[in-house]
């Protein structure tokens, strides 16, 4: 015998102070913010409260270009194309979605951020990335 259940529990997740600066900049200015580490120089995205490369917390916010290079991608049938994007000026990659991606993709291909028209300080304020050119 079995008992059926559907777990539905309302939760609120705090984005944190650093994460909130990232989300508010998306919403209010259509800008992508990252964090530059004073200790090791690593530039991470989204904004952080400590450096993912060296764990130091002496960070300053930096505005990143809305453009970058494709690092990797995967198409999941029915769910779209996910991608790792190395934004110009950042060291790590941002995991997000590609919009209207062509059939053939290549590492290093140029992509540009596209913002949602209605924004609510949510990761989907960044609607995704569109491919704008060939690789280097």
């Amino acid at each position: 015998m079995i008992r059926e259940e559907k777990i539905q529990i309302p939760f609120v997740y705090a984005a944190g102070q650093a994460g909130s600066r990232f989300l508010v900049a998306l919403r209010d200015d259509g800008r992508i913010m990252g964090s530059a580490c004073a200790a090791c120089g690593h530039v991470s995205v989204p904004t952080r409260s400590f450096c993912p490369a060296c764990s130091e917390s002496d960070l300053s916010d930096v505005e990143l270009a809305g453009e970058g290079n494709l690092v990797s991608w995967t198409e999941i049938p029915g769910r779209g194309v996910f991608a790792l994007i190395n934004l110009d000026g950042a060291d790590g990659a941002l995991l997000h979605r590609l919009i209207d991606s062509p059939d053939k993709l290549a590492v290093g291909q140029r992509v540009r951020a596209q913002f949602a028209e209605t924004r609510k300080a949510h990761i989907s304020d960044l609607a995704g990335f569109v491919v704008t050119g060939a690789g280097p």
Partner: protein
Amino acid sequence: MTQRPVFIAGCGQVGPVAEDPRSIVEMVLEAVEGALEDVGITHQDIDAIVTASVDILDGLTASNIAVTEVVGAVMKPEARIAADGMAAAIHGACQIWSGAYDTVLIVAHAKPSMAPYQDLMQWAMDPIYLQPLGVDFLTCAGLQAQALAAGDAGAEQRWAELASARRAGTPAAISADEILASPIVASPLRAEMCAPMEDGASAIVLSAVLGKHDGRPQVTGVGHDLAPHDLGDREPGIWRGLERACNRAYSVAGIDNPASAFDLAEPSCLFPHEEELFVAAAGIGNATVVSPGGGLFVGHTPVVAGLSRLAASASAMRQDAGCRRALAHGAWGPAGQGQAVMILEAGAP
């Protein structure tokens, strides 16, 4: 080694099977009884227990509480690891090395047939940046595989052949052509490249005092490591965490040249590209036999996988006197975020 020995004294295994109709407790009971019987002991001979389970898979909070009685942990020290069972085995080995206990029972279970796995693994991702986009473990695996396939035109054919080779001679046997004809699940990964997800449980008795006279294999090195959660904070095409875990284990075991050190490797790889990542990170050579029974490609139970690989390694060493040293591996989290390895050496012949 100056430490006291840790023997893999006995093993008990349930599954993997696609859908076990029993309760988790009944599955764990069979695995625990199997392990105790393999050593010829009872619960009274166990000093402490380490369990591995993941709440989200069981649909419970504190999923170890549901198995407290069946693992014999009432009125005994129990520690719980919310990761792959290999991490629990390392925890138990360290308890023995510390001198705290002589004999520790390690138990791992999971029953993924209880709920839609994609929903669960999406819930396991970062709730601010990744969950809302629909990112799950499969997404991360696809991104990792594509990072390897880009600029490697032969990758898909090679992966199909590898996944086919692992299943050869098993009921799940399938040709490389059939694998390449199966649907894409997360490009470039295809359905038949993936290890099938199944229910299971595993129990292992580690001991400093039991198993020596039966020639049971001995743990001579352990290593454990975590990479950042977000794939964007990692190098997507390398398992750096496994490199670090292996280097720790090799250092403890006194292994200078992993390329010629192992007769057997039992990795926890869910996709063929992960086996390539494993081989590269562990630095094993062509003389090492990898997953002779098919590894996880014939059936994979999350949480249990690493412990089942440890049991498979110990079993191979007990059956084949020529198998002198083995590397057993567990991995968990998105795209191998968590990594753990154990080195086994055969007992006196």
